[in-house]
Structure formats: C-alpha cells, structure tokens
C-alpha cells in the first residue's frame, strides 16, 4: 500500500502540477477535453494523495479502494494523476490518443494500470460502482467505492436507475462525487436540461448529500471523512467546480468542454499555472 499523506499545501501544489501536465498532454494529443479535467484536478489530487488506499505496484490489490470514473471524457486528469501516483511513467502521457497507446481517448480498464472501469458513454459508471459496492458487502470487504460523475450525465436515465438501487441496498460503502461544473457539450446544464436542485433530488432518493466547493481541498477531505460516518445510506458529494479552473480564458466556457489547447493557448495556460508554482495557496 502506498497511500500518500501530502499536506494540504502539497495537495494544492500537486493539483497545479496535474493541471500543467493536463495542458501539455492535451496539446500533444491534439484532441480531447480540457474543461472537465482542469476542474477536477483538486479532487484528483486529494483522492490519490490523501484519501484512497492503493498500491501502484499492484493495481489489482484486492483491498484497494475503488475509484470509478463514470464521465470517461475526463480521462486526461485520471491519466496524469495515475502517472504522478506511480502507476506508469509520466513520459507515457505523450502517447495519449495515439495508435497503440495504453492511454485511449476514453479509459479502458484492460489498457491502463490503475483504471478501474471502462467508460465514455455517459451514465454507465455508477451502475458498475454499485455492483462493486454490492460485491464488497457480500464478501465483507472493507474497501470503499468512489464514483466520479459529471453533472451532465444526470440527463441519462441509467444514472437514476443506479441511484435508486444504491439507496434501496443502503450502500454505505459507496460515495458518489458529482462534478457540478454547470456545463455540458451544448452549453450550460440549466439550459440544456435543468438539474437543480440536484441536492434535493438525491435527498428525495434517500441519499445523504454534502455540498462543497470542489476547489477547496480541505472541504473535500472533510466530506470524504463525513461520508465514512454515514451508516444507513450512500453519500453524494456535490462538488461545485469551475470548468477550466486555473486557466482564465477557459474558465466557465462551455466551448472548452471538448477541445484541447493549441500550441499558443497551451503556452499561455502554462504561464498562468506556473505563477502558482511553489506559492503557498492555503494557510
């Protein structure tokens, strides 16, 4: 087990490194999604360097905590974080979306060490996480199951099918993290298909809901700890995030949902992110 216990400051620095690598990786790939991965960098930093139990030299270690990613298009943040956590060499990030790469455009469990589930078509990950949590309970395992979902994929009926079953089965070993960034491909979520109040919806399905600022790492860690203490129901952490976080010309812009930066844009983004290097952004 190589669970790492970075300090809050170190986690923010790690998140900044992850963001820079996301920019470099996407620019090199020439296609892929920018906004979601940047918005999730703080949460991925906290998950892999504070919350999750895992062993990067033994990705299938049976007692590891499971992280399912349902919105597979955020693959860049997952791949970058996995490489930082030691699952594969950082240099391999430059193969993203290239022929014969282990880093497919959308994650495939058979290709990439540390990738728990295959995803891309939205709405499928939570069902798989529910299956994993049910198996864990049947086998009296103590691993925890986390599932990251996008807000947009709550348009999919399957997501609600899974929400209902998790609640029926009182899966207290399951924590869903909703990346509430308010954008999807065609625009703002509340225009495409209104989701609010997402909190009340989950509560109506008998989940315990914690709403947080998805860029406040301490809040996120606290929410994960609180989730462990809820025994009678599954927990949903609604993490309000800024799509494109850290790069001013990408933030809040739906048009950055599904495209990568070109060379100039990547340069500008990296300059902005580098200004945060080594700075204490939390006290």
């Amino acid at each position, binding site marked *: 087990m190589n669970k790492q216990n970075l300090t809050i400051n170190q986690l923010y620095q790690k998140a900044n490194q992850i963001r820079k690598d996301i920019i470099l990786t996407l620019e090199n790939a020439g296609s892929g999604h920018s906004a979601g991965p940047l918005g999730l960098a703080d949460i991925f930093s906290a998950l892999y360097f504070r919350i999750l139990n895992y062993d990067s030299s033994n990705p299938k270690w049976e007692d590891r905590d499971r992280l*399912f990613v349902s919105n597979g298009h955020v693959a860049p943040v997952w791949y970058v974080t996995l490489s930082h956590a030691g699952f594969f060499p950082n240099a391999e990030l430059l193969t993203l979306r290239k022929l014969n790469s282990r880093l497919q455009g959308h994650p*495939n*469990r*058979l290709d990439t060490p540390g990738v*728990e*589930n*295959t*995803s*891309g*078509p939205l*709405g*499928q*990950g*939570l*069902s*798989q*996480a*529910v*299956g*994993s*949590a*049910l*198996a*864990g309970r*049947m*086998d009296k395992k103590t691993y925890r199951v986390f599932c990251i979902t996008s807000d947009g994929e709550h348009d999919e*009926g*399957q997501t609600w*099918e*899974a929400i*209902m*079953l998790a609640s029926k*089965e009182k899966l207290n070993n399951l924590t869903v993290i909703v990346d509430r960034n308010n954008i999807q491909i065609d625009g703002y979520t509340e225009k495409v298909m209104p989701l609010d109040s997402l909190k009340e919806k989950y509560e109506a399905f008998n989940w315990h809901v914690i709403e947080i600022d998805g860029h406040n790492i301490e809040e996120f860690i606290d929410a994960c700890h609180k989730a462990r203490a809820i025994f009678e129901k599954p927990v949903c952490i609604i993490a309000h995030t800024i799509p494109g976080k850290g790069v001013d010309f990408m933030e809040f812009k739906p048009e950055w949902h599904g495209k990568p930066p070109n060379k100039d844009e990547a340069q500008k983004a990296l300059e902005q992110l580098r200004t945060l290097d080594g700075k204490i952004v939390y006290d």
Partner: protein
Amino acid sequence: MINDLENTLLNYTDPNLAKLPTRDGFGQGLLEVAKQNSKIVGLCADLTESTRMHWFAENFRERFIQVGVAEQNLIGVAAGLALEGKIPFAASYAVFSPGRNWDQIRVSVCYSNLNVKIVGGHAGLTVGPDGATHQALEDIAITRVLPNLVVISPADSEQARQATIAIANYDGPCYLRLSREASPVFTTSKTTFEIGKAQVLKSGNDLTLIATGPMVFNALMVAENLKADYSVEVINVHTIKPIDIDTIVKSAQKTRKVVTVEEHQINGGLGGAVAEVLGEKYPTPMLRIGMNDCFGQSGKAQELLDFYGLSVYKILEKVKIFLNEKI
C-alpha cells in the same frame, strides 16, 4: 448411418415426448451450478419467475439482486460484480436485454471483457399472444456482432440446463437466448453440450438443415418426413458465436444444399451467420427460413409458427421446393 450423437437422443418421433421450455432448463442449471460455485450471483429486472431465476433467488437470497425494471442498470451492476470476481447472471426478456441495453452490453461488458452472463428470455415468435413488442427476433443479430461475446441458443430444456452450467464455467461474456413456450425435450444428459461445437444430430447426404433453438426439433421432424426420398443432415448450431465453421463447411461440401431455420430475422441471425461462413469458405445454394424482415403479431405459438412459415409442415413445403429447384 446413425452417428454417435444421434444415439444419445430420445426418440423424437414419439408424439408423447415431454415438453418443457428452455427457460426451465436455465433455471434448473443455474440452481445446480450455484450450489457448486459461491461466486455465482443472480440479478433480475422484475421478471424473476418468468425467466425462471426464482428458483435461484429462493435458494440464495443473499446472492440475488432485484434491480427493478431497469435493464441498463441491470447490466452495469452485473459488470461491477464481475469486476470483483463474481459470476453474475443477469436476466430479463430478450427484447429488453439485449434489446434495450445494447450500449451497456457493448461497453460495460464486452469491451471491458467482463464475465457477465446475459440471459434473454421470451425470445422468438412463440412468446405468442403478447405480440410483436415482446417477440425478440433481432437479438442474435445485435449480439453476434459484439467482440468477446459468446452467443448461445439451446435447442431444448436439457440443452439449456447444460449450456447454463457451461457458460458459468466459461470465463468471459455470454448471451443465453431462451424461449417461453414449452417444446419437446429430445436431448439427454448424454448429448454433451460444448460451447462452439455444433451438433450433427442426424447424418445425411442430400441436404443440410441447420437450425437453432427449439426450431432444431422442427428440423428433425422435417428430415423425418423427407426420409423416404431424401437423406437430410440436421445440424444444431446452439452456439451462434463463435460459429462452428468446420462442421458447417464439411456438411455443405457433402450435401451442396443448405437450409437454415430460426425463430429470428433471417437477416443477421443464424441464416446470416451461415451465409457468411459459406460465402467465404464454400459458396453453396442456400435457403434461409425465419422472419423475413417483418414484425410478428399476437396469436398462439403454433398459429404464429404456421402463419410465418416456421411450423414443420410449412418448413417442409419450402424445403421441397428448394430441393426441386435446378441449381
């Protein structure tokens, strides 16, 4: 000439042959194999008794998950259980699963290459009075194109029992196609089922009749009716994918005339699969008998088979014309 396999069959010309639906064989097989293997879990989308999963559910409550009328979630949850080493059997009607959740089967099961057993009940025309909405006539076509997926369509209840045990012991995604209606049980425990190995149930030289599911019995009866004039070979293709190329080609080389019979669209189903094999390996005149690009309707099972040309008599008529065509 009677082959070894034929010797294991019951006398199928006996009008008093017992009839059972293939779903019963599945329910029995699942119960048997679940007693041996604690990794087996069952999931159902609100059709537990209809799919005959209730025998398992009553005996292994702690290993049964009722997901409600939610076929997409059914498959996703099964995939998650398989990720953790379970052997999930996920049951519904074939029109809903794989009919409604094909993308979940494609990505969460097949691309992920997970050990999920998809059980599609009430397949084919013989669903009867429920009508076209509930008659799965396209499920073979949409499953046999999926990489990694094994597609099984057992000929009778005993074969369904054996097939259930076989797929439980096979590591990989499988689709098991079952029928609602009782049909003659003519195979025995000695008629050994092997995934991917088609069964020559009757040897012959003038014509090859290839069938799947309960239509295999009809094919045998057609051969019986023709025996005074023609020696007909009958092959049970219980595994649609991977299809047994050798057995099909060898038979076509001998008889040079091939007829396929299925309770499914002729396009993309067994007929399509056999045509693909022969088109590449040994082009042979063919007749595909099944649903000809149309939906079914309400009616009794036997009435429907007769109306859509799948009763023994209707198949016989078509085969006679095919045999007399100058090729």
